């Protein structure tokens, strides 16, 4: 049984970047904006976090840089789609293509650099409790932040006044505008939150999951995060379950070989992607549930009548 604790720890590290990015995208989508550029924002967050940490020696500065970088990326998206009313699908794709290229360009100077991974929480006595200690009290702070963020977003959307306004904007932008809310401003803020969280998710990859930089290191996690939002039917609580399920699937390939399962590694690597497809099919086929929970105005441009 001594393998169980390290196994759970790797599941947590594999799930955290997905949870961070998906939490941000959920808020963005709830406001009626579909930003398909999560993969690009994560990559730029990953390189910003890594480059600043490697140059300054401070992980805190690195994490702040990742937040700023992700937010700036989302601002490009917001300007094009909200101010200039460009097509959201095409702009999201452009953001990912740009992010892949930009991160690779900046990152070419940082390949092979080594940094210390984010320090884990260590409470004398408590973190040493068998099994529960390292799992509950021995994580780095981004793991706690990811859980806190999803709880915070859950409260924000369900209980706060601002959250209700945000949902109103996502469900009926014309009514929200008529009551006097600034649809565009609220969507800008929701999109920026999505960018900041995607940047954090990317930074978790390059600072903690594998403390290094490699081109395209997100390997589709941004897209999986997008699928997770659908899986969760836009409800934060289910996002946690989804992210941890995907974390579990993606570390299974690492442990399969050790467990004596001899399937070619490529087939094991396909699992997260295949699981995404299967999950999307199961959730989406329940059309009534999707209609009930999806923001009604998602992906639609808004222009106030003058």
């Amino acid at each position, binding site marked *: 049984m001594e393998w169980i604790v390290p196994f759970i720890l790797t599941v947590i590290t594999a799930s955290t970047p997905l949870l961070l990015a998906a939490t941000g995208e959920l808020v963005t989508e709830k406001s009626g904006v579909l930003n398909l550029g999560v993969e690009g924002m994560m990559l730029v967050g990953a390189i910003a976090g890594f480059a600043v940490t490697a140059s300054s020696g401070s992980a805190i500065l690195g994490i702040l840089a990742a937040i700023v970088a992700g937010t700036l990326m989302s601002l*490009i998206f917001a300007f094009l789609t909200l101010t200039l009313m460009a097509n959201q699908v095409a702009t999201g794709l452009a953001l990912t293509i740009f992010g892949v*290229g*930009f991160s690779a360009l900046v990152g070419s100077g940082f390949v092979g650099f080594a940094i210390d991974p984010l320090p884990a929480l260590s409470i004398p006595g408590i973190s040493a409790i068998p099994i529960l200690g390292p799992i509950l009290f021995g994580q780095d702070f981004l793991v706690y932040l990811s859980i806190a963020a999803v709880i915070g977003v859950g409260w924000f959307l369900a209980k706060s006044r601002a959250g209700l306004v945000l949902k109103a904007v996502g469900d009926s932008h014309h009514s929200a505008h008529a009551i006097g809310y600034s649809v565009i401003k609220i969507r800008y803020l929701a999109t920026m939150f999505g960018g900041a969280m995607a940047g954090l998710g990317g930074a978790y990859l390059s600072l903690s999951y594998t403390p290094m930089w490699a081109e395209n290191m997100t390997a589709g996690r941004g897209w999986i995060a997008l699928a997770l939002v659908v899986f969760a039917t836009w409800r934060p609580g289910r996002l946690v379950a989804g992210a941890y399920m995907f974390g579990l699937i993606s570390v299974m390939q690492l442990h399969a070989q050790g467990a004596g399962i001899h399937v070619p590694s490529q087939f094991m690597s396909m699992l997260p992607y295949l699981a995404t497809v299967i999950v*999307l099919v199961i959730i*989406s086929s329940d059309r009534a549930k999707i209609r009930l929970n999806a923001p009604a105005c998602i992906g639609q441009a808004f222009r106030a009548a003058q």
Partner: protein
Amino acid sequence: MVRLEPRRQHSQAMVYLSPVLAILMTLVVGGIIFAFLGKNPFDALYTFFILPINNSYGISELFVKATPLVIIAVGLAMGFRANVWNIGAEGQLTMGAIFGGGLALYFHDSESILLMPAMFVLGALGGAFWAAIPALLRTKFNANEILTSLMLTYVATLFLSFLVHGPWRNPEGFNFPESRPFPDAGLLPIIFEGSRVHLGTAVAVFVVIAGWLLLSKSVIGFQLRVVGKAPQAARHVGFRQKRMVWFTLLLGGALAGLAGLFEVSGPIGQLQPSISPGYGFTAIIVAFLGRLHPVGILFGGLIMALTYLGGELAQITLGLPNAVTGLFQGILLFFLLACDVLTKYRIRFGTIAAKGRTA
């Protein structure tokens, strides 16, 4: 104050002017980026965009790179017109290469002239098969084709990697992860001596013409044009959305598969883990740059092919990372989308009150 005012009619002039504006703006930003990287911007832009094509071999290479881009983009454009977002062309390309290339490996000592046509068919079938999955999942289970087609791209790439590392690895090779070289009968003929321009380039031109005819003369082409311009009207007249999804995905997949087959039986000549520098993704930009029209796509394909050649040359002569190519491609699409706003809106200076007085 600057604001956008809707035009009564879409500006036809801006539809054609917008790509030109976007390219010019990309060049300016490109120059600034080169300056940041410590290069003389004019030298760098010259190396990137002029030097690769100032000789006949360079121009022939431009055709080689534009071939897959144009073939894929014509198919994707049909889908984009109908709001079917197939972004997994890279995976369909890979499956086409596996299906068509697999045939060449099975008949690796064949000299039959029938091998090549059979590879064409299998390549197109492989791509269409891979695109049929998102089509089925969208029409039957309502699953978003953007996410499913992209996820399947990762699956296809891993499958190719498995094949060339495992069962299809060259038994007479040196344990490299690559297949046997294809037999001569499975290699595309070169159509310009002394270059790498192959039969696939001629097919690309044919695809452009056929795509143009399909769009302008056929019933389904008419439906695609209407759906793009007035989706609600199209629904009222009863155009069947499901048929549109199937048609555009199968067509896009078949063309991407064909493009993948052309890469492995043309410039590459065997199967290997990586067979495309992201042609399937770049083709998305080509489709938009070409205004979702086959003839425009021909020009768009040549321009994007130039960014690949320029990127390679800049890597060799200026020591710039290859990633600059992707960066340029992304920036170009940003500017294109931004400029396109001018087809529907005009920029007005002054306040709304000022407009009120003239009314």
